[in-house]
């Protein structure tokens, strides 16, 4: 299993890998927002956490369609399906590698973009923390969408359409936890813990659903 993790990480940093693309897309999306809403610093600092969250959500969906498609195209998926190792575990490890390669850089880039959004230190810290807790959930649930769309010729867009509605709860609790951290009266912990719980829930449901879909999709 370690071998699979190492291979996927290697592939993501080699030529044509998606490690850089996701974080670049994130930065671009966030950089475009001020052109749309105007350079009002007060407004930006108020909507900053939400923008960072939406940007991270879109960016982590970006490379997901290749998660299983690349494996299917070169025939590796057939071999992985045949193994004694449970497919759920294989999917889980692939998700983990994908998150380390694309999700973690988003989390690391978010404090920098928080400065661009004129957010204060508290808001930046809370956003980074919630992104750290929330982006794995997006990857896990996205894996299910990627597995469903694996055999389709234009699966990339479909993955986003399938997964975005499912990722809404993550977005809700992520942003509300940040708002709770900024505005004193509301406590930070309850929404944050719900976010963590969602993460664990999706870490189970996503791979199981993805494994089922992959078994059915092979022909």
């Amino acid at each position: 299993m370690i071998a699979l993790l190492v291979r996927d990480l290697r592939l993501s940093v080699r030529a044509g890998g998606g490690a850089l693309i996701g974080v670049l897309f994130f930065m671009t999306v966030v950089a475009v927002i001020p052109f749309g809403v105007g350079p009002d610093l007060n407004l930006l600092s108020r909507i900053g956490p939400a923008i960072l969250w939406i940007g991270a959500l879109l960016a982590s969906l970006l490379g997901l369609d290749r998660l299983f498609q690349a494996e299917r195209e070169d025939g590796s998926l057939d071999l992985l399906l045949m193994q004694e190792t449970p497919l759920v575990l294989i999917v889980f490890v692939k998700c983990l590698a994908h998150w380390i390669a694309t999700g973690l850089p988003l989390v690391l880039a978010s404090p920098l973009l928080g400065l661009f959004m004129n957010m204060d230190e508290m808001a930046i810290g809370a956003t980074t923390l919630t992104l750290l807790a929330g982006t794995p959930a997006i990857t896990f649930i996205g894996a299910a969408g990627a597995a469903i769309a694996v055999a389709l010729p234009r699966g990339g867009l479909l993955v986003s359409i399938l997964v975005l509605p499912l990722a809404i709860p993550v977005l809700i609790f992520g942003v509300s936890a940040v708002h709770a951290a900024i505005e004193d009266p509301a406590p930070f912990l309850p929404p944050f813990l719900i976010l963590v719980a969602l993460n664990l829930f999706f870490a189970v449901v996503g791979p199981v659903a993805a494994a089922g879909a992959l078994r059915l999709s092979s022909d």
Partner: protein
Amino acid sequence: MRLVAEGLSAKRGEDLIFHDISFEVAAGEALVVKGANGAGKSTLLRVLAGLLPPEAGSVRIDAAAHTVERPCEACHYLGHRNAMKRELSVEENLRFWKACLGDLQGGQGLAVDAAAAMVGLGGITHLPFGYLSAGQQRRIAMAKLLVAWRPVWLLDEPTAALDAAAEEMFSGLVTRHLSAGGIAIAATHQPLGLGGAKELRMTGFAGLAEDAW
């Protein structure tokens, strides 16, 4: 050890590809599946590999050294595609499959370098897989069969991109595998140069499944 298939039939989409195929292959034996294009050779191999559920019938492995839950776990499958990443070097690819597949009881896989040498490409394991020609890529995919031990080899057109010398090399590999107590099932047009192999001739099935519609 015996691989037994009983009354297999399989569908692709709505078409019944083949119907009621039974055979039995014992350890040390090879089975060559022959037939015209579209006769269902590839489909049969995918059913044996557990990648397609059979419409009817069953596959099982009797008296194996290591009992497996699904027969496909005891199989190597060499499909049309090589299951290798172009971006990684040959060595990284083979090392990955060696670690990922692991050995089944009753045999031992070769080291990566030894396996590459067996297919005649010992010196170029440091090259990225994408740099190799189609024939070389196929040979590396065959080296994958050697790095992890599986008693059953399912080979789908194994020698399609190979020249005569490489074909000979490959039949040597299969013979070696059979003498170690393995089983080989190959779908091919070309003669594999395997003396005394069983033959299964597939005629294709001209007819739809039950006329449900």
